[in-house]
């Protein structure tokens, strides 16, 4: 929507969230150090930093992975979802500190290249209990680097949303690598049982929430397609809140039906900016406002108000005795459609 790229699209809320992230990270590291030193006062500062930031990174990764399904189950988590990118970059920084210090402590003091040393200082690749687990951490960190470094809007628009999304799905590969990294590493460390217990609990929570939210979406998708002729019956008008929308899946496309000023309008649910769910946004100043970063669209034609040029496709609606019907065929992006009055 802007005319050039900015460093970060900050607004008041995001600044507050970022402050919370930084403070929480600091607090965690301080607490971790205090607790470790109380129980084991001989821990060296390097080991402390490695463990504090490694565990911080994996905790943050869990939070990042559960925000998606949580906000699909309950919309009060949405504000955190909008800030997930900053959380991701912060997590990468924590992981980088952990990896960097590990390389420094274990690999930088010899006469071989430190990166080469990660791969070759332990060549026991066939073993389970003595596997060179740091190699797995290295590849995970590499993936996290790609994700963090391409989190700016520039990459979303220049790699195309499809490739960007695919790249960012690699977070699940990174998650698997990190689980293996910690699991196999734990065999070689004294922390083992506690660490493994937490790891398994975390995995159950992450995969459980993904399954539950996928099941719920599947159910929503099913209920919406019982139609008569070309018109599909979608819902009763009272099910939509004023100045809000309800989202339906119409022939595999997500459509948001908005109710405002005694009118109904339907548009494609996907924001042109970064694919944000328009139907989870509100009507503000007469415009559908994307909940993610505030791009706006006029409900009756799916166009951003001038001077902006974004357009989404629109749909035709009709009302019969308080029941809303939709014509499943989408109009071209930005097509004017007479809103349905009630």
């Amino acid at each position: 929507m802007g005319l050039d790229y900015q460093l970060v699209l900050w607004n008041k809320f995001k600044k507050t969230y970022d402050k919370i992230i930084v403070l929480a990270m600091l607090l965690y590291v301080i607490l971790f150090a205090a607790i470790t030193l109380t129980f084991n006062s001989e821990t060296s500062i390097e080991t402390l930093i490695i463990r504090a930031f490694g565990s911080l990174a994996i905790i943050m990764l869990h939070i990042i992975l559960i925000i998606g399904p949580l906000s699909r189950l309950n919309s009060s988590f949405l504000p955190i979802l909008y800030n997930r990118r900053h959380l991701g970059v912060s997590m990468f920084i924590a992981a980088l500190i952990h990896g960097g210090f590990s390389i420094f402590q274990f690999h930088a003091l010899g006469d071989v290249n430190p990166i080469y040393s990660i791969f070759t200082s332990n060549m026991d690749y066939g073993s389970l209990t003595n596997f060179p687990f740091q190699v797995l951490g290295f590849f995970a960190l590499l993936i996290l680097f790609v994700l963090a470094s391409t989190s700016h809007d520039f990459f979303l628009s220049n790699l195309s949303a499809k490739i960007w999304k695919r790249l960012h799905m690699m977070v699940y590969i990174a998650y698997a690598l990190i689980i293996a990294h910690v699991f196999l590493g734990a065999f070689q460390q004294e922390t083992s049982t506690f660490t493994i217990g937490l790891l398994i609990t975390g995995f159950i929570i992450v995969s459980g929430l993904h399954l539950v939210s996928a099941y719920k979406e599947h159910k929503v998708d099913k209920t919406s397609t019982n139609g008569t002729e070309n018109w599909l019956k979608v819902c009763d008008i009272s099910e939509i809140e004023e100045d809000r929308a309800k989202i339906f899946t119409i022939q595999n496309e997500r459509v948001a039906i908005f109710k405002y000023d005694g009118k109904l309008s339907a548009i494609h649910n996907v924001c042109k900016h970064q694919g944000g769910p328009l139907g989870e946004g509100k009507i503000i100043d007469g415009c559908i406002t994307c909940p993610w970063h505030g791009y706006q669209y006029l409900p009756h034609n799916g166009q951003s108000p001038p001077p902006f040029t974004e357009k989404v496709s629109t749909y035709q609606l009709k009302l019969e005795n308080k029941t809303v019907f939709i014509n499943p065929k989408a109009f071209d992006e930005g097509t004017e459609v007479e809103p349905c009055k009630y």
Partner: protein
Amino acid sequence: MEIVVNIILAVLGMYFLIGILFGLYFLFKGATKIDPLMKDTKKKVRILLFPGIIATWPFLIKRLFKSKSL
């Protein structure tokens, strides 16, 4: 095994090196050709984009060639 490690690291190293060289050209020249928003984008922002360009240069090169043939 040592050979495999050597190959992986050599490929990674070359990927990054090409990325850095391409990135320098792309940031200050090429990017504007595929994205008009880059014309007025400040230097600070460009530097922020640099690591990502190193990471994804094969995609960006493809875009650059496509836009030139138009």
